[in-house]
């Protein structure tokens, strides 16, 4: 079932980056019956995993991704520490800038919800009770966007795509936090508050770049913090190389949140 026609794609969730690469190796590839796939040869996803970060150029877009006031201090500190560790392991950090990163949030939201609404409209009209409360309320937002809003979102999308391509012509990957905060609890969950806050994931979905989220620490409340490693189109092997090399020098991916241990059956 689609959400956003031009955004939907699938990816594996695994404990290690190597497992993720091996899973994607099997999942990726051209399917003539699937117009969402490209007739591009699938690279060897593990080929570049040599545990080394030497000569890897990491772009760090400090503006927006590390400066928005909503960014949690623990998240920021964990990602900056991870960048320092990768630098110490041989990577070169390069300051980069995505001038319209903030507008990506709006363009992605308008694109996703307009496309989702287009698909779900008849069912939302006839049988809204088939949807969960939050899913229904989120997709209903698409009804409030105009054709001009959608077209404008695609123009902004093209602009940001060009900005990302310019950056990735000079670095191997880009690294940013995955989320603003650690995972919220249901007690404090407010989906409408998310409506107004920055996001760091939608932009890569919007411009079609491969992004890998890797745990890079735990908060004081024992909730995981993660960073994203983003690469050029179809350049997953270098993304996996960087993520795997980071996991070779850290052990965050082997740890378990405290609450998960508490709810484990005896």
């Amino acid at each position, binding site marked *: 079932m689609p959400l956003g026609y031009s955004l939907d794609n699938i990816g594996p969730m695994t404990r290690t980056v190597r497992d993720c690469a091996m899973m994607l190796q099997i999942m990726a590839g051209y399917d003539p019956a699937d117009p969402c796939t490209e007739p591009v040869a699938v690279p060897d996803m593990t080929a570049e995993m040599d545990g080394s970060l030497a000569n890897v150029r990491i772009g760090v877009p400090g503006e927006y991704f590390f400066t928005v006031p909503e960014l949690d201090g623990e998240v920021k500190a964990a990602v900056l520490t991870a960048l320092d560790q990768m630098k110490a392991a041989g990577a070169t950090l390069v300051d980069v800038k995505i001038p319209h990163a903030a507008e990506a949030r709006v*363009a992605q*939201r308008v694109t996703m919800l307009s496309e989702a609404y287009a698909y779900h409209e008849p069912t939302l009209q006839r049988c809204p009770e088939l949807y969960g409360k939050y899913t229904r309320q989120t997709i209903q937002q698409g009804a409030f966007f105009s054709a001009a809003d959608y077209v404008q*979102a695609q123009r902004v999308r093209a602009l940001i795509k060009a900005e990302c391509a310019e950056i990735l012509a000079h670095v191997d990957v880009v690294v940013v936090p995955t989320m603003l905060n650690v995972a919220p609890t249901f007690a404090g969950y407010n989906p409408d508050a998310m*409506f107004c806050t920055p996001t760091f994931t939608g932009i890569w979905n919007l411009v079609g770049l491969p992004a890998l989220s890797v745990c890079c620490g735990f908060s004081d409340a024992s909730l995981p913090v993660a960073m994203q490693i983003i690469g050029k189109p179809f350049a997953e092997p270098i993304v996996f190389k960087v993520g795997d090399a980071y996991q070779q020098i850290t052990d965050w991916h082997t740890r378990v949140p405290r609450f998960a241990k508490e709810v484990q059956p005896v």
Partner: protein
Amino acid sequence: MKTPNGESTTPSAETVAEVDFVTRRTGLPLTPEERERFIKLYPSLVEMLQQLRLPETRYSEPALIFPATADR
């Protein structure tokens, strides 16, 4: 009534009319709770959409965004 950020506000008659118009036009059977939520969200939504009106894209070539070829 409160905004998505929790600030108290009174919706304008125009906002209520806009939400009711969209609801009527689209045929969405909103519950009273959902209608109130959209009345609350609508001003933020309008403000958000203004962010897409960038000078950089005002005169950009549409064909760069929606290519006419099938093999893009």
